[in-house]
């Protein structure tokens, strides 16, 4: 007896061929994004590296983009998935503008939309392999939130992705306060990025800092941080911990 094998439609995620279409591992990845609220809005920093595994392959990747009039999105993780998210948001903002009615999607709405997208993809076992930071100002209200690839989302006064959570946020917890000036905010972010540069192997010394206020978004030109490698601990790293490498 011969039964006709049942055919799946081409875009289904079931069956043996489908596994090559789900995201199983990331390939070209960006590392930490760090952001904080300051007096006039949000400051966000990310380096411009795109790693291919352990190789620091691409060094001019812009990992922060402005979204609509009121939001700024930073991403770590798979760069191609970030580009896909930018396409989704482009369409979202386009339709929002087409209403042409004086209403516009603010950072809170964009953040929640992204949460729904990330969570729904996770439920289909086909995640967008990113950790996102979404910040913005609308009608004087500052907003800063994050969404992970499994759909975990929350808002806070300062957020970070990846290694930033472990290295930058403790600094921010100590030194962040309400109504930071622009200069203090930048100084604080640079402090965090410098620690990440020293300690995260996928960080590169070429970063951008973005600012979003009620007036709009500015993303800085790429620049690099001054580093100091003559610390005595760097000279003899095994001193305090025999057997380390």
């Amino acid at each position: 007896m011969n039964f006709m094998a049942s055919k799946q439609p081409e875009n289904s995620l079931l069956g043996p061929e489908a596994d090559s279409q789900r995201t199983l591992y990331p390939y070209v990845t960006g590392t930490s994004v760090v952001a904080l609220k300051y007096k006039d809005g949000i400051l966000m920093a990310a380096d411009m590296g795109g790693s291919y595994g352990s190789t620091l392959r691409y060094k001019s990747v812009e990992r922060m983009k402005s979204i609509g009039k009121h939001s700024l999105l930073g991403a770590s993780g798979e760069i191609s998935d970030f580009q896909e998210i930018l396409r989704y948001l482009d369409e979202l903002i386009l339709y929002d503008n087409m209403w042409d009615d004086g209403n516009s999607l603010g950072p809170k709405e964009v953040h929640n939309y992204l949460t729904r997208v990330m969570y729904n993809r996770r439920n289909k076992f086909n995640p967008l392999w990113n950790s996102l930071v979404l910040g913005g100002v609308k009608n004087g209200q500052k907003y800063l939130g994050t969404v992970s690839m499994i759909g975990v989302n929350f808002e806070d006064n300062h957020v970070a992705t990846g290694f930033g959570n472990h290295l930058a946020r403790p600094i921010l917890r100590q030194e962040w306060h309400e109504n930071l000036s622009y200069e203090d905010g930048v100084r604080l972010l640079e402090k965090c990025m410098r620690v990440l540069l020293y300690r995260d192997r996928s960080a590169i010394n070429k970063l951008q800092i973005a600012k979003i206020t009620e007036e709009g978004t500015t993303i800085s030109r790429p620049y690099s941080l001054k580093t100091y490698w003559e610390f005595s601990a760097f000279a003899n790293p095994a001193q305090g911990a025999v057997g380390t490498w």
Partner: protein
Amino acid sequence: MFRNQYDTDVTTWSPAGRLFQVEYAMEAVKQGSAAIGLRSKTHIVLGCVNKANSELSSHQKKIFKVDDHIGVAIAGLTADGRVLSRYMRNECINYSFTYESPLPVGRLVVQLADKAQVCTQRSWKRPYGVGLLVAGLDESGAHLYYNCPSGNYFEYQAFAIGSRSQAAKTYLERKFENFTDASRDDLVKDALMAIRETLQGETLKSSVCTIAVVGVGEPFHILDQGTVQQMIDAFEIVGEQEGPDAAAGQEASAEPEQGAGAGEGVAPMDI
């Protein structure tokens, strides 16, 4: 309107460029019992006249809460109105879920109008036979819209639809310039006055009307009958010195006799 050879289905134009089925649908709205709406900068009040079929039955629900910031009053085929309210509630809740933000009323109204338009261009459908007064808040403030069976929608400072709505419109036209800066309570008072105009001499009491309010800091809700009656008592007895109201004033004093019969007979099924 008289019957003619172009009014059989909605997809037939008349030589004069009219769609008679759509116009007949708008007639259905005119035959329904009155609904009125008016707005200030921060609040919108909806009101409607409730007519029960008989003393034994309850009256039909004509005001629906769509979301905390949007409500609608209908006139015409209430079944169609109920279905459209369900659609509106669905749209609002889906938007809230995705964006954690209330759906701007201007967008809901356009979606509703587009839905109505579809029914004017399909041979297997009929237009919705209900007019909707949509009251809602969005970023730009308080709004009142009227959605037509034709698929048109208009924004209003104040409006009335349904039978004898012309009387209410005349009252509103006289008073509307004050509405933008009026207080919430004055707005409710004006709504009650407008409803009274449509009753053409019948006494205004809370059992024949329903009032709902939505405003900044005040989610959409229907006022309970006790509150409405108190407002009627507070405003009406101290009547205005205007022609039609003087007559109504005299009828109000004859109320006790009428009230004992008709008033108590209506079942208090107001939800």
